[in-house]
């Protein structure tokens, strides 16, 4: 029997049990769809991280407050207030490789305009913050050094605020209120999109850090210092100098550990990429396991099918099927089922990926490699799990098979 004939025989056999064939393939469908989707999300996440890291700004160094250690027990990063505005100014003024430094203080507050209000993040920053972040303005102006020095009640707002409070109208010159305090809007930020952590960066109100410390947050220390280095080649030296300067300013003895953490943009990127890679591997393995389970499902049904079709096998042998025709038929049936499952799974995976990309706003990209490898893998699953039932079918004694009830 040639291959085309075998294919036809298999098609007819699968068609005879169309419903069961579909249900059998379902395991592989779900497995392949899961693999495609997770790989797609992982791939999309990585490219988005790269983009976001670039959007973080150029040659950026972040300094975080250090951890408090009590009797050898670390309370974790950011538990102590070790970074002051003066630290930030010193870094900017005393290290020549550094062009800008902005002490950051965040608060989450209700912001009101007229009868509308919105819960948002208020960031206290210095005047050169937008320069560090490479964040252009859409309208108006950024607050100045003078605004910072005088703790002026001015604000620069992100696109989310424009949409939520002003319904898209230009808000420059309007006054919003935070805890009853009026803030005059002097500028609007360009759209920035998602951050590395997945938050919407446009949901933001920027005010001078001095204003934030005095009227909004009630804190006295910076939560982060955003720093920009002159150029790429000075990153390492700038980092060392920041460390020296802060240790000196904090009067740390040589045996004492740093009470701050310095992270460069690359480190942030690496951490984020590694995290997404770990997640992809984790999700991918789960998806792979489900594909494997789908394969076992095929084997299960094929075994049942061999028993149920004992008589059919007997008939085929009686009319001239060779052992390898029977083996080939059952193997090919399993292969067809898993390939059908693979194809449907790829389609489903595409659909789910698109849906996730659409609703969650994630960048999901399904690569050709992922499609190809999951299809090949599902075919391999079919052959692997189809062989045992096929061999069982081929070894049936035709006389007993013909009498099987």
């Amino acid at each position, binding site marked *: *029997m*040639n291959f085309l*004939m075998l294919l*036809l*025989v298999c098609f*007819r056999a699968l068609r*005879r*049990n169309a419903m069961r064939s579909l249900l059998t393939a379902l395991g592989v469908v779900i497995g392949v769809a899961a693999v495609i989707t997770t790989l797609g999300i992982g791939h999309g996440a990585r490219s988005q991280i790269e983009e976001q890291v670039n959007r973080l700004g150029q040659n950026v160094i972040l300094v975080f407050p250090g951890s408090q250690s009590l009797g050898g027990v670390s309370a974790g990063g950011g538990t102590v207030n070790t970074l002051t505005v003066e630290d930030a100014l010193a870094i900017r003024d005393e290290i020549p490789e550094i062009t800008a430094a902005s002490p950051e203080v965040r608060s989450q507050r209700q912001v009101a305009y007229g009868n509308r209000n919105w819960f948002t993040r208020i960031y206290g920053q210095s005047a050169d913050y937008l320069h560090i972040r490479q964040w252009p303005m859409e309208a108006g102006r950024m607050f100045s050094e003078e605004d910072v020095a005088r703790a002026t009640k001015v604000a620069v707002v992100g696109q989310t605020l424009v949409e939520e409070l002003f319904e898209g109208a230009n808000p420059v010159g309007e006054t919003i209120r935070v805890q009853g305090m009026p803030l005059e809007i002097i500028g609007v930020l360009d759209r920035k999109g998602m951050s590395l952590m997945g938050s919407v960066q446009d949901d933001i109100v920027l005010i001078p850090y001095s204003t934030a410390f005095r009227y909004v947050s009630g804190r006295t220390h910076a939560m982060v210092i955003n720093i920009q280095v002159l150029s790429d080649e000075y990153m390492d030296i700038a980092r060392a100098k920041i460390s020296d300067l802060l240790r000196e300013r904090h009067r740390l003895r040589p045996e004492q550990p740093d009470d701050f953490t310095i992270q460069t943009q690359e480190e942030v990127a690496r951490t984020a990429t590694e995290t997404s890679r770990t997640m992809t591997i984790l999700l991918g393995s789960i998806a792979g396991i489900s594909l494997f389970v789908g394969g076992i499902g095929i084997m299960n049904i094929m075994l049942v099918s061999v028993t149920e079709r004992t*008589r*059919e096998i*007997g*008939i*085929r*042998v*009686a*009319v*001239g*099927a*060779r*052992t390898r*025709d029977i083996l080939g038929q059952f193997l090919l049936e399993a292969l067809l089922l898993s390939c059908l499952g693979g194809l449907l799974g790829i389609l489903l995976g595409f659909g789910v990926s698109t849906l996730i990309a659409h609703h969650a706003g994630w960048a999901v990209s399904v690569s050709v490699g992922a499609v190809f490898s999951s299809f090949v893998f599902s075919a391999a699953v079919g052959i692997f799990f189809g062989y045992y039932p096929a061999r069982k079918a081929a070894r049936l004694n*035709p*006389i007993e098979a*013909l009498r099987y009830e």
Partner: protein
Amino acid sequence: MPVIEIENLRKTYSMDGGLSVEALCGVSLCFESGEFAAIMGASGSGKSTLLNILGCLDPPTAGRYLLNDDNVAALEGERLAALRNENIGFVFQSFNLLSRTSALENTELPLMYNHSGLGMTEIRRRALAALDRVGLAERADHHPNQLSGGQQQRVALARALVNEPSVLLADEPTGNLDSRTTLDIMALLQQLNDQGMLIVMVTHEQEIGAYTRRILEMRDGLIIRDSPVENRRHARAEASGESTTRLNATES
């Protein structure tokens, strides 16, 4: 020249626990083309075993089996499959059609395993011709569950004939049929035999044996009687006669 020639054929089944059962204890036979033989005997007499060996489904333990001068006993699985495909047509008591498969596709089955590598159009044409031969061409697309027992057996006959075998082996072909349909099937077998087909049939009904030309009686793995049928019955005539009688009965 005989189509089938067996000499001192033996078949021993070994059972669990070292026991062995002799199903055939040295059978010698010869069938020529155009014969219509009935193998009769009680159950356990070895008639089914003989038929399975003749059908190349079961290898004999000892003895010689020549089918069209091929020594079947010496052949490997592949060649046996080809022999079954090309030279042997099987008909079973329980029809053994593939369920949820049309009569046409059931009939196509042996052609698909044929080694000459026929195209699908040719396969379809021959299958239709075979169905036509058993008078079921217009029901080619019916599934077994849409056919009566007699019609199913006709499809099975079409399937057995489709490769133009040199012998038709029938295992109680009328065992599952009522007397009216039995007549139909026997008429069809007689018609095929009249066209020159060698038919070997296993049955335990004396009545059915009367439609054949030769009766072989078996007991305990041996042929105890081999005689031609005298006063051979003709199924076609009886069937039309019966309907005439029935017609008369309704008229009167």
